[in-house]
């Protein structure tokens, strides 16, 4: 805003325009350009990659080094009658290409279509003799070839919206998505004491259709809506993956031999499934300050894809007569909320969400668990009920401060799950936060929350002796989501604007999870996380601005287990019966830094750049117990059940360095040239695939130091 309103610039412009009529026309043209959304522009991009690296290409879609061409197009037209036409294409010609078009009469109706491709290349290269990759039958060849595993999603969406009246709106969205390719899967070939892992990539060929329709009547006072959501998944890759290699029998032979299928063949593939959801919802403003919402939905999901037929490789249990699972899950969701500004200063919220997932799949006998006592086992439908409640009160304090106190209630009830677990889990959270969010140089918030989680009694008692059926160590661990837990969280955020162009932000977060174990500190004991971050942005003038940020975080997990062997008595009487308690302290330390700038050197030349650094270091500190009720650890030849080479894991480290620079030059008012440069370096030091060879000879290679350079030229023109 100018300081002296006597000299309003519009008046001056008017005066100038009176003196110089031509300048008036120019001014009007400028204004028209400022307020018109109409755009018609196209661009052609040529980018040269010096090297395609697995980590860089993961989602970028470019898997060929050298020159890759693509085009962008953007057309937006708005008529005086308020009719919009939008056509937009990005990365046309690349695997990441997407295209959208819509026609809209604003405030009345809209129709649109969108097409989107999302590729994903595995971040490694595979060298394998396995053939048939991408299909439902795998064989073992003799020649080792390199292979890129990838999947690609191709989605087309149609949308339509119509205001039937001022308050009544109908929406329909239909999305058709195909996903094709292959991904790392794996299977086991087990013979003669060898546990051989086989490279068995899963074929991906699926179609997912989703349709969502709703009708919504809304006024300032209330709204009601109803809708339908349908999901239809079809797996066209088949019902099973046949692995025609694997075990041979007899010592001295390699595990994988063509024509001798692994015992796991065929591996089951994901079955087709369908879901239909219906919902009704409504909200009512009791007054200007009090609002209530309610939503009820019911979902009917089925999975009745036919099974792999009964055969020598898929032997049905004699009493099992089904040809499909007959899976049926009905889910009911209810959500209600009430918000009210009781006084100018006091604001209340109460909300409740309920979910009843009722797995109504018929239970029949499927198998005899020979390895574990010969029990006849059925399928295991899993039902659960969940309640999430929230109550919160906010009170406005003087000087722009606000105090909020809240209580969260989480309750889960499980039905039909494994008897190891609990029937009910309850978590109560108490939290308080203070914030200041009214214009000043310093704003911010401080939040503290404390949670306590516990549950009903366990369905079993820990097994301390081997009774011939149940091994020592059974029922010792409290699975993470079932265990008692105390959680504390602290969050601090400060926004500081010491001078107008400078903005600084500081954030600190701390969380501590303390798990109560069932016995002997087995399982997850403790989790800690801490985050510190600092952001700053500076606007030098209307043409130049810059920003930078840094964050540091750590995550620690402490957990314990017991090294054992199959059927061990854990009484220390022999190697087989020696069990050794051990613990792991898992630490992740992350540092990330970013900086960027944008500027205009002249009215024709603009430049910008970004630099991103990110480094994550995982440490795995494993320690054996020196003593314990169940072991006299005598690590070494002939005395211990600890497997040779166990307990020493190297750190894993990932470092990302990316520099992006651009310069854009306006050749004319309509034509521009843009130059982009990317330097991307990713270093991965990870033991996952290091010195690893599948039993069929397949190796997975991850280049530990990957540098990609990209130079791109884009020519764009506005019509």
């Amino acid at each position, binding site marked *: 805003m*100018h*300081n*002296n309103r006597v000299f309003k*610039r519009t*008046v*001056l412009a008017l*005066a100038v325009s*009176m003196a110089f009529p031509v300048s008036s026309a120019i001014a009007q043209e*400028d*204004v028209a350009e400022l*307020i018109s959304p109409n755009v018609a522009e196209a661009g052609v991009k040529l980018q040269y990659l010096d090297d395609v690296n697995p980590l860089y290409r993961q989602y970028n879609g470019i898997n060929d080094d050298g020159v890759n061409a693509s085009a962008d197009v953007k057309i937006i037209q708005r008529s005086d009658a308020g009719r*919009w036409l939008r056509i937009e294409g990005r990365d046309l010609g690349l695997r990441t290409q997407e295209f959208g078009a819509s026609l809209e009469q*604003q*405030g009345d109706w809209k129709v649109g279509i969108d097409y989107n491709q999302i590729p994903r290349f595995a971040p490694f290269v595979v060298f394998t003799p396995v053939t048939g990759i991408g299909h439902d039958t795998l064989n073992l060849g003799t020649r080792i070839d390199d292979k890129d595993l990838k999947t690609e999603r191709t989605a087309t969406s149609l949308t339509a919206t119509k205001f039937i009246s001022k308050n009544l709106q109908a*929406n329909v969205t239909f999305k058709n998505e195909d996903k094709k390719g292959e991904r790392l899967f*794996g299977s086991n070939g087990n013979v003669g*004491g060898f*546990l*051989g*892992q086989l490279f068995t990539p899963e074929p991906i060929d699926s179609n997912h259709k989703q349709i969502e329709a*709703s009708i919504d009547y809304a006024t*300032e006072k209330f709204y009601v809506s109803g809708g339908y959501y349908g*999901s239809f998944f079809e797996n066209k890759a088949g019902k099973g993956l046949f692995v025609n290699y694997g075990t041979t029998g007899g010592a001295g032979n390699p595990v994988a031999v063509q024509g001798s299928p692994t015992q796991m*063949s065929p591996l*089951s593939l*994901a079955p087709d*499934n369908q879901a239909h959801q219906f919902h009704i919802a409504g909200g009512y403003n009791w007054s200007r300050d009090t609002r209530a919402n309610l939503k009820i939905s019911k979902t009917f999901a089925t999975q009745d894809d036919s099974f792999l037929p009964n055969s020598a490789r898929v*032997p*049905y249990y004699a009493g*099992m007569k089904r040809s499909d*699972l007959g899976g*049926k899950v009905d889910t009911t969701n209810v959500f209600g909320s*009430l918000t009210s500004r009781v006084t100018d200063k006091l604001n209340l*919220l109460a909300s409740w*969400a309920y979910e009843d997932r009722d797995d109504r799949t018929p239970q029949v006998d499927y*198998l005899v668990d020979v390895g574990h006592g010969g029990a006849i086992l059925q399928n*295991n439908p899993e039902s659960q009920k969940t309640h999430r409640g929230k109550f919160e009160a*906010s009170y406005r304090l003087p000087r722009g401060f606000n105090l909020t106190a809240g209580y969260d209630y989480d309750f889960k009830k499980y039905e039909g799950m494994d008897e190891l677990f609990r029937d009910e889990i309850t978590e109560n959270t108490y939290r308080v936060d203070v914030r200041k969010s009214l*214009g000043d140089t310093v704003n911010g918030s401080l939040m503290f929350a404390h949670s306590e989680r516990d549950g009903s009694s366990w369905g079993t008692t820990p097994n301390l002796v081997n009774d011939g059926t149940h091994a020592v160590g059974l029922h010792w661990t409290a*699975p993470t*989501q079932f265990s008692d837990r105390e959680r504390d969280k602290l969050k601090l955020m400060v926004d500081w604007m010491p001078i107008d162009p400078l903005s600084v932000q500081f954030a600190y977060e701390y969380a501590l999870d303390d798990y109560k174990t069932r016995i002997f500190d087995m399982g*997850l004991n403790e989790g800690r996380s801490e985050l510190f971050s600092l952001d700053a942005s500076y606007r030098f003038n209307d043409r130049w601005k810059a920003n930078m940020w840094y964050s540091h975080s750590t995550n620690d*997990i402490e957990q314990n287990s*017991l*090294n054992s*062997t*199959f059927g061990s008595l854990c009484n220390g009487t022999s190697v087989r019966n020696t069990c050794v308690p051990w613990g792991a302290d898992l630490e992740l330390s992350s540092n*990330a830094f970013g900086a960027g700038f944008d500027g205009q050197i002249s009215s024709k030349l603009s430049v910008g750049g970004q630099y991103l650094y990110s480094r994550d270091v*995982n440490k795995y500190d494993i320690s*054996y117990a020196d003593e314990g009720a169940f072991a006299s650890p005598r690590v070494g*030849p*002939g005395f*211990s059940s*600890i*497997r*040779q*080479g166990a307990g020493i894991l190297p750190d*894993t480290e990932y470092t990302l360095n990316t520099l992006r620079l651009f310069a854009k030059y306006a050749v004319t008012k309509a034509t521009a040239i843009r130059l982009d440069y990317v330097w991307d370096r990713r270093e991965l030091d990870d033991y*996952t695939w290091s010195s*690893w060879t599948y039993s069929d000879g397949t190796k997975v290679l991850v280049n530990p130091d990957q540098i990609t350079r990209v130079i791109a030229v884009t020519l764009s023109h506005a019509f």
Partner: protein
Amino acid sequence: MRKIRSLLAVLACIGSVCSGAVFAADAPKEAPKDIVLAGDAKCTSCHDEADAPGVLHIGKTKHGTRADGRTPTCTDCHGDSDKHVTYKGSDKPPKPDRTFDKQSATPVAERNAACLSCHQTDPKRHLWAGSTHERRDVACSSCHDTHTADDKVRDKRTQAEVCFACHKEQRAQVNRPSHHPIPEGKMACSDCHNPHGTTGPKLLVKDSTNATCYTCHAEKRGPFVHNHAPVTEDCANCHNPHGTVADAMLKTRPPFLCQQCHDPANHLGTIPGVAANTDLSRTVNGLATGSPAVQNNGLNSVGVTQARGCLNCHTEIHGSNSPANASKALRFWR
């Protein structure tokens, strides 16, 4: 500055004389014309293309579509602001009744009320009241820029930048090697979250975590012959969808992740180890094996640690639909 003003004043006089304006002094003064919105002359007579071009950019947006009778004018959002408009002093005038900048003195609820007076009837904003962002005093203008055609938060390539202004942990996580394609601009935070309020946890677009994940990963919906309890309950039991160092966005890599739930009986408590530290030619007793040892054999820990870890054998970890009379199907091997 003073020289410029003087020059402009002279120029104005010349212009007026040349156009004969001085002879029309008694003629009724022409009211300023609206530029973009109906009634915007009250503001644009000062805030014109020379003063603040960005103000006029609202003409490029849906708010600036006059043909739609619902679109607002400046004062619908900023208030009548009479003190601001009629100020005669030479210094800065008082601010408009409602402002939306970062240092605004307008209470957030009042700022948002200006938007909600129209947008509360939008189906995706029905649950704004009571949502986490509403309760934490997040202003609509904290994320949205209503005066530009290119609102960063509505473009999936730039949206995450806006969200990361507060969600710092996620900013670091998306740059880890296993992540959803958010940095690459192929996914946006709003594909999974509706920041305007939902019935689900964590502002997820569907009623539950799993229902949200199934919109893209429908093959995991099941139910299966053999269900895996934590999978059925909540995908986030094992995955961090914002990004991890471990493959497949697993919160912790196997076998550690699996050992957080599974009993140590039998081989489940095996201490991890890698091939580089293992004498692959020897048994646990230090004796040479009778046959060429496969590095990931049953005599060492490599098979549960490297490659996919436990999932090397328990391939069907999301649930197996194998009807076979086989214990291995029950345990997700086939």
